[in-house]
């Protein structure tokens, strides 16, 4: 106990020290500022450039061969916008899902599963601010609006020390600063959603803004349809249905140049999904003569309402300061909110008398259940990042960050019987888990050019977390090495350690707001990963380029729900309802590309293994649910002319895994053969499992196709018609599967049935750039 108190005291002393260090370093850099070249005047300064080379060469498209880190992909806006556009929206996450080493899951269970990751271990940053919720509409859309995106850095290995807090990947999305001199934007109409983006100078040459908004109008289509349907069903069955779904997101960025060496930027994002549904069934009485039933709107029979909402909000202020040619600093204060909720009401009414006997509707009773689940995370962050180039052979980055998290998860359930206004409470659950957590990190990384052919990028990050009176330290060494064999060939290797101080507490894997983010506590330790990756990167003749990478990754302190059947994890006992384990993943990835001015064809293949060891589930290693042995993505874009370009992409991966009873004990398997149904019936055995995730579902594959037709309007603006087909050959990819205990003569075994939800989706949209 004394040691723990000492640690906590040390932590309490450290937090202000780290903040002080940030401030001092920042003040030093400010004091060191001189009137240097106007670095912002031409917009060429790139504080976020990922490598020494990138800092030197900012105009060329930088390929993997010229970077030090393994596992880094930079996507610029043009790359994202040339990708597939479902329902009118090019998508960052869908583009990343096509990269080697990245698995997509399926619709409803979408996300990024990177190098054996859990899906909840990806760090999503939007202008440097964390996003906890990144998908709309069961994962078909991501929260990143491509209209406002400048570029995306995606890391799956070789993480620089400036990134931390998640185990498996970093998706660092930067939005574009508004044009300082001209107003322009885009307006786009699709089948179910629309986008609007505008940017321009507020004060010419000084202040600009960039604003983008997306919203679906699915609700405005479904509401009238439901109203028409309800009119009929109300008369016929006394039923009234409700349904409403909408999502939107909004980005706002305001940039102001204070001086040639100072710039501030305000960024705001809000994205939300809302899904409501339910039905009312009214009390009815049948006329004995006419046999017709009359339903009474003032007498409820049963009612069910579900109201789900999930989304994120971020707001941040960033100050970029160039102290000298060699030193620049970025300081950011930000707030991020993740907000999930589910409300539900189920009621059943009983009427003791007919309408004639009880015209005032007094003789009734009801049983009603209401549930209210919420999960919120508030993040307050302050960080400073220094970028110092002391010589041509060094680029040193260092910095510190402080985060104050408030985790708030609650579950309230009330079940009561009510009779004419008098309530008798049956169940009253009111569980709230609220944690405050402090997280701080210091990092330093250097990129050292040693001779002409060798670059080393060592780094160290030290993170600490204090929650629930428990202090965790996490030193995280990082190193990336690159050796240029010749001008067209590079060898790279990296080693990284990462920690994650927050757990996604979930009882089901669905893309629904049924999960909660909660911090590590005395019982729940921080997750940790160690990864080594390396490969060869080569430019081939005829504009071909080849990347071959391998990786080995271990994960520890993973947690899985081990409680009983539930949609929500039990908030009040969440620590005891989860069991800890570890994971490992390894594999090889090949990326082959051919890029010319008009054509870009790429092939990404991954051969990988993802395994888990949870002693409470099984006594040995077993394959993970997301153990995709083979993944292949082929994408092609071709520009036939300035007016016509096409996109095509084929995705294939081995199916997900599920768990099935596969052995029987205690009796006999078989039973008797029923000639009428032509089926075997009457099995008598106790089914057993040989191991978790022992069955693989059918493979996932789909083909997407898109065409852009561009036309210049009379006013000189560009209009783009986009026609896209998602899942062009209508492959019903499995989302989940069941097993039927039917053993017919043909199959001579179990019959598995899988269910697919997303058929072919053709879309058309029109975008006007003005």
């Amino acid at each position, binding site marked *: 106990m004394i040691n723990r108190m000492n640690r906590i005291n040390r932590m309490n002393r450290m937090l202000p020290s780290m903040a002080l260090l940030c401030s001092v370093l920042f003040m030093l850099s400010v004091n060191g500022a001189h009137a240097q070249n106007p670095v912002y005047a031409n917009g060429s300064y790139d504080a976020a450039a990922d490598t020494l080379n990138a800092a030197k060469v900012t105009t060329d498209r930088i390929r993997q061969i010229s970077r030090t880190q393994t596992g880094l992909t930079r996507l610029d806006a043009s790359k994202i916008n040339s990708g597939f556009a479902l329902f009118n929206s090019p998508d960052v996450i869908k583009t990343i899902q096509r990269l080697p080493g990245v698995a997509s899951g399926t619709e409803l269970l979408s996300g990024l599963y990177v190098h054996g990751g859990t899906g909840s271990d990806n760090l999503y940053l939007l202008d440097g601010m964390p996003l906890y919720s990144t998908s709309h509409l069961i994962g078909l859309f991501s929260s990143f609006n491509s209209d406002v995106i400048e570029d995306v850095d995606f890391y799956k290995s070789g993480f620089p020390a400036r990134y931390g807090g998640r185990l498996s990947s970093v998706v660092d999305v930067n939005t574009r600063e508004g044009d300082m001199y001209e107003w322009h934007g885009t307006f786009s109409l699709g089948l179910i959603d629309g986008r609007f983006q505008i940017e321009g100078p507020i004060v010419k040459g000084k202040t600009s803004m960039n604003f983008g908004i997306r919203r679906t109008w699915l609700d405005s289509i479904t509401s009238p349809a439901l109203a028409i349907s309800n009119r009929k069903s109300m008369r016929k069955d006394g039923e009234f249905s409700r349904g409403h779904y909408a999502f939107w997101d909004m980005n706002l960025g305001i940039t102001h140049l204070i001086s040639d060496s100072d710039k501030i930027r305000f960024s705001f994002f809000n994205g939300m999904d809302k899904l409501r549904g339910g039905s009312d069934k009214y009390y009815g009485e049948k006329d004995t003569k006419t046999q017709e039933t009359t339903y009474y709107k003032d007498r409820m029979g049963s009612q069910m309402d579900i109201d789900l909402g999930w989304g994120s909000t971020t707001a941040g202020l960033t100050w970029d300061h160039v102290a000298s040619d060699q030193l620049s600093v970025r300081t950011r204060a930000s707030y991020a909110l993740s907000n999930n909720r589910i409300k539900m009401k189920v009621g059943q009414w009983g009427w003791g008398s007919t309408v004639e006997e009880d015209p005032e509707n007094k003789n009734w009773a009801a049983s009603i259940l209401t549930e209210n689940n919420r999960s919120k995370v508030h993040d307050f962050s302050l960080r400073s990042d220094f970028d110092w180039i002391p010589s041509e052979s060094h680029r040193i980055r260092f910095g510190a960050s402080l985060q104050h998290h408030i985790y708030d998860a609650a579950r309230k359930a009330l079940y009561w019987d009510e009779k004419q206004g008098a309530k008798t409470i049956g169940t009253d659950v009111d569980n709230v888990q609220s944690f405050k957590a402090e997280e701080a990190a210091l990092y330093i990384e250097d990129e050292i050019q040693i001779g002409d052919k060798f670059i080393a990028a060592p780094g160290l990050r030290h993170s600490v977390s204090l929650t629930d009176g428990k202090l965790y330290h996490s030193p995280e060494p990082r190193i990336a090495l690159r050796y240029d064999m010749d001008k067209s060939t590079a060898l790279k290797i990296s080693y990284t350690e990462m920690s994650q101080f927050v757990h996604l507490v979930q009882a089901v894997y669905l893309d629904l707001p049924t999960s909660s983010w909660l911090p590590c506590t005395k019982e729940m330790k921080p997750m940790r990963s160690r990864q080594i990756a390396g490969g060869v990167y080569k430019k081939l003749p005829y504009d071909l380029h080849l990347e071959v990478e391998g990786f080995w990754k271990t994960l520890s302190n993973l947690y899985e729900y081990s409680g*009983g059947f539930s949609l929500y994890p039990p908030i009040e006992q969440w620590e005891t309802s989860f069991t800890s384990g570890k994971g490992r993943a390894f594999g090889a990835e090949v990326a082959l590309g051919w890029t010319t001015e008009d054509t870009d064809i790429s092939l990404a293949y991954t051969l990988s293994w993802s395994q888990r060891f949870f002693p409470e589930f099984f006594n040995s290693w077993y394959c993970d649910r997301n153990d995709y042995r083979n993944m292949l993505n082929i994408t092609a874009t071709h520009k036939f002319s300035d007016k016509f370009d096409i996109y095509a992409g084929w995705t294939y991966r081995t199916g997900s895994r599920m768990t099935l009873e596969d052995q029987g*004990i205690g009796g006999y398997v078989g039973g008797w053969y029923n000639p009428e149904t032509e089926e075997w019936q009457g099995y008598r055995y106790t089914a057993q499992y040989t191991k978790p995730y022992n069955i693989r579902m059918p493979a996932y594959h789909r083909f997407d196709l898109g065409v852009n037709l561009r036309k210049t309007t009379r006013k000189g603006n560009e209009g783009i018609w986009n026609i896209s087909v998602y899942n062009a050959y209508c492959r019903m990819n499995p989302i989940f599967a069941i097993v039927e205990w039917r053993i017919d003569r043909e199959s001579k075994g179990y*019959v598995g049935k899988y269910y697919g939800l997303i058929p072919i989706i053709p879309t058309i949209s029109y975008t006007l750039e003005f």
Partner: protein
Amino acid sequence: MKKSIYLILAALMLSACEREFRIDRQIGDSVTYLQFVTSCDQNPSYLVIQATTPLNEPGRIVETAGVELSVSSDGTPVPMDRITAEQDTHKSQRFSTGHKFMPGEEIIVSASVSGHKPVSASFIVPAKCPEFRWDYHFEEGLDDDDNPLGILYDSILCFDIEYDNLPTSSGRYGIAVALEEQVRYEQCTTTSNPYYAPYYDKLVWTTESEYTGYHDAPPISASSQTMSSTGQSPLVVTPTELSQPSLDRYHSRVQAWIDMPAVAPKTGKQQIRIRFDSQEVHESFDSNAPAQWATEWYGLRETHRYRYKLVFYSFEENCYNYLKSQSNNGGFLPMLGLAPVSCTFTNIRNGIGVCGAYATSETDWIDIKKP
């Protein structure tokens, strides 16, 4: 809440498109099932070994032949007596031992079945379970004869259990409530059908669904199935039991027990609440329950009396994990691949099943007196 889950899944399934796929080729061949759960409070101990049958092969029966078994306690061989000369009707082979296992002993079990990989497992016998104190009281339930939706329940029997000085070395505990129902008929015949029904800490278990089965029983029922008289483990279900549909209640029994994992404090207080659902028998239930109720049935006067026994368990880790795993067996979301799977625990190397131990401490039968 379950309603909403069903609704969501029903909506998904209705809107989804289904396709069949073959999974039989992914199912492996027969493995060895081994179950040996013992206790220092239990004598004799039973062991079941069986070759499993792959479920994709209808009609096939895998013989459990050529069994070789070795059990040792702290390195000393433990004699195991074969109960059945050959495999029984359920194609298993059973063994028993009168050896008294002592706390702290390491038990190693090795076995092989002809044509199968040898299997093995080990565990430590947990310390004796500490004593506990108990009391009971009644809380008012929801009784409303005029409720058009029917009566819910009229009283809640609450047991208060206090324990202290739990051993810290084995930190996995459970509490079960054994309920014995005595049925007396006018001819003065008596039958006793005790069964064990553990309860969750706060959740409520409805007795009604359990004992309606007894109404179909003949006035003079089979012999009582107490824990000791059948020699069966009170917690782990044998293949024989599960293969008999009439013993399905054992399934429920295993599914519900108080989970007091490693974080249980050294001293503590638990409350067990038992709700009585009187929908089926409310004519006589409201005044006598839960201690006794009576009804006329086919010309016979039938009086039911209940008494209770509290059993405190301390589990060895493997035993605990297996029970927890079995209790999660019923969830369908994991089976759909939509939720984590936790029903697959085994500590048998190269096989399936469980070898583990537990300790118990229990009260005498408690006659309930309703004030």
